[in-house]
């Protein structure tokens, strides 16, 4: 399929894997992600790739990627010809990185017209393969809840299928070679997206961040590297990729570290309920009140209120509002999705109005 050339990107709101609100420990863990970085042998890495190299890498990878036998249809999007709105929507759905949307490397090289693309499992959105990001190939697999094992399984299947017809840059000492030496070796990044309002309200987040840093883990905001933690959403991921196998890294994160953070968050939530029940209940219902009555809402404000609402739903302090509505809204209040929903370009002020309208309409059936 060719969504890249002016057509609408055929995504269904309900399909975003990371907002499915099911899966193991889904009261705290929204989603699990695995990313494999791969480069083709015989080509320079992206910083030294000429326009002709990039075009050739894109052609080769696209042909192989769309041929992979998968259970569902793979959609291809050429990002250099896609519209700004399409690129924004893909970023908001966590299918491409901000960097890939811009076509720029962290070093500042490149630009919007650089040949690059992404392949997406259209129905489930559990799989996205970026071509010509910082590395030639970035295979990303996503699962709701705490499910790194399942996510790794899918990423490995795709990796094995691609490797049958592509020669990867691999070195006996260094493993899979990547443009940035911080990814070399396994080229793998496990990442878990957590909802941590309890720890934030109890001012315990710094402790988690310090503990994570001591264990060589990165704590990042909602949209990854360099982004703020809006809506109390955090991503915790491994930084080490060399000298530990995929299984060892997975085990450390999934069995040793994340369960501790989950328990810590749950304990904070319990404490908030037992020691500050009325305060918490007030906070949650105030959030619901603003969401159902506001006439102007900024994106970050909406995200923070939805986070508080979600906490209330999970703790049973709010009755009647389904969790999936709060989740769907987390996505729909983002600028790109909002613009698409209203069908016309808007400035920031109009967006705030449209956002408040959309949230009020979605929550209207649950107003008490």
């Amino acid at each position, binding site marked *: 399929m060719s969504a890249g050339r002016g057509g609408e990107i055929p995504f269904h709101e309900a399909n975003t894997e990371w907002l499915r609100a099911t899966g193991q420990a889904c009261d705290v863990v929204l989603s699990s992600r695995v990313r494999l970085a791969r480069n083709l042998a015989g080509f320079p*890495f992206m910083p030294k790739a000429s326009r002709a*190299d990039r075009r050739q890498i894109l052609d080769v990878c696209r042909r192989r990627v769309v041929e992979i036998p998968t259970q569902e249809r793979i959609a291809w999007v050429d990002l250099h010809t896609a519209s700004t709105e399409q690129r924004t929507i893909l970023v908001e759905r966590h299918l491409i990185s901000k960097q890939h949307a811009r076509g720029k490397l962290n070093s500042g090289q490149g630009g919007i017209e650089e040949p690059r693309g992404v392949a997406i499992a259209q129905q489930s959105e559990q799989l996205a393969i970026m071509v010509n990001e910082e590395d030639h190939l970035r295979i990303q697999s996503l699962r709701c809840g705490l499910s790194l094992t399942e996510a790794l399984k899918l990423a490995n299947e795709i990796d094995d299928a691609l490797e*049958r017809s592509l020669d*990867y840059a691999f*070195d006996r000492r260094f493993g899979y070679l990547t*443009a940035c030496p*911080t990814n070399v*070796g396994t080229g793998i990044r496990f990442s878990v997206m957590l909802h941590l309002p309890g720890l934030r309200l109890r001012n315990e987040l710094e402790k988690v961040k310090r503990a994570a840093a001591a264990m060589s883990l990165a704590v990042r905001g909602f949209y990854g590297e360099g982004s703020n933690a809006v809506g109390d959403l955090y991503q915790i991921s491994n930084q080490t990729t*060399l000298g530990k*196998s995929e299984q060892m890294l997975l085990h450390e994160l999934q069995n040793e570290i994340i369960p501790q953070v989950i328990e810590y968050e749950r304990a904070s939530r319990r404490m908030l309920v037992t020691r500050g029940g009325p305060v918490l209940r007030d906070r949650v219902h105030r959030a619901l009140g603003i969401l159902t009555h506001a006439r102007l809402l900024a994106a970050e404000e909406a995200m923070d209120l939805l986070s508080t609402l979600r906490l209330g739903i999970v703790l049973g302090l709010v009755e009647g509002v389904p969790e999936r509505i709060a989740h769907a809204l987390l996505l729909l209040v983002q600028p790109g999705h909002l613009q698409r929903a209203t069908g016309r370009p808007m400035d920031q002020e109009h967006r705030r109005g449209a956002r408040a309208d959309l949230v009020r309409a979605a929550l209207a059936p649950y107003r008490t």
Partner: protein
Amino acid sequence: MLCQCGEREATIHEVVIKAGRKVERHLCEVCARQAGMDVGTPATPVVAKVTVVQGPTCDACGTSISEFRHTGLLGCPACYRRFETQLTPLLERAHEGGTHHVGKVPLRLLQSMSGTPAGESLLGDAVERAARLGLLRQQLEEAVHAEQYERAAMIRDEIAKAADSHSGGPEPKP
């Protein structure tokens, strides 16, 4: 001055001084873009750039170690071996002391190399193997010390794999 394409005026001029040698390029904007050069923006075009390259340079892609230190990115697969000496301390810091790959290996490479004497071991030559095994043993000791037995079992598996993939013979003493 005409660009090397012979069609357009050269507007982007680059001088690279490397190991005392001067290499000049005079290109039009189209050819400069094709060559992957930074052409700036229409408002502030790059018209002349002089780069003095210091330290070792990768023969395959021309990336210099100073360039890598500036951008944090390498230029091609060959850079890893070319800059091995400079990269090693950096890798140790970035990867909790890790200096050798442990884990997945491309399937086709594994099949093509197993059983052939030249293959030796995908995990590298004797020196590399010893380094990797030493690292794994250290990790094993730490895991046992911390009573992380599940993790210890996993590391033991990796040690067995590393030893297995070596064609015959007991593993060397660290």
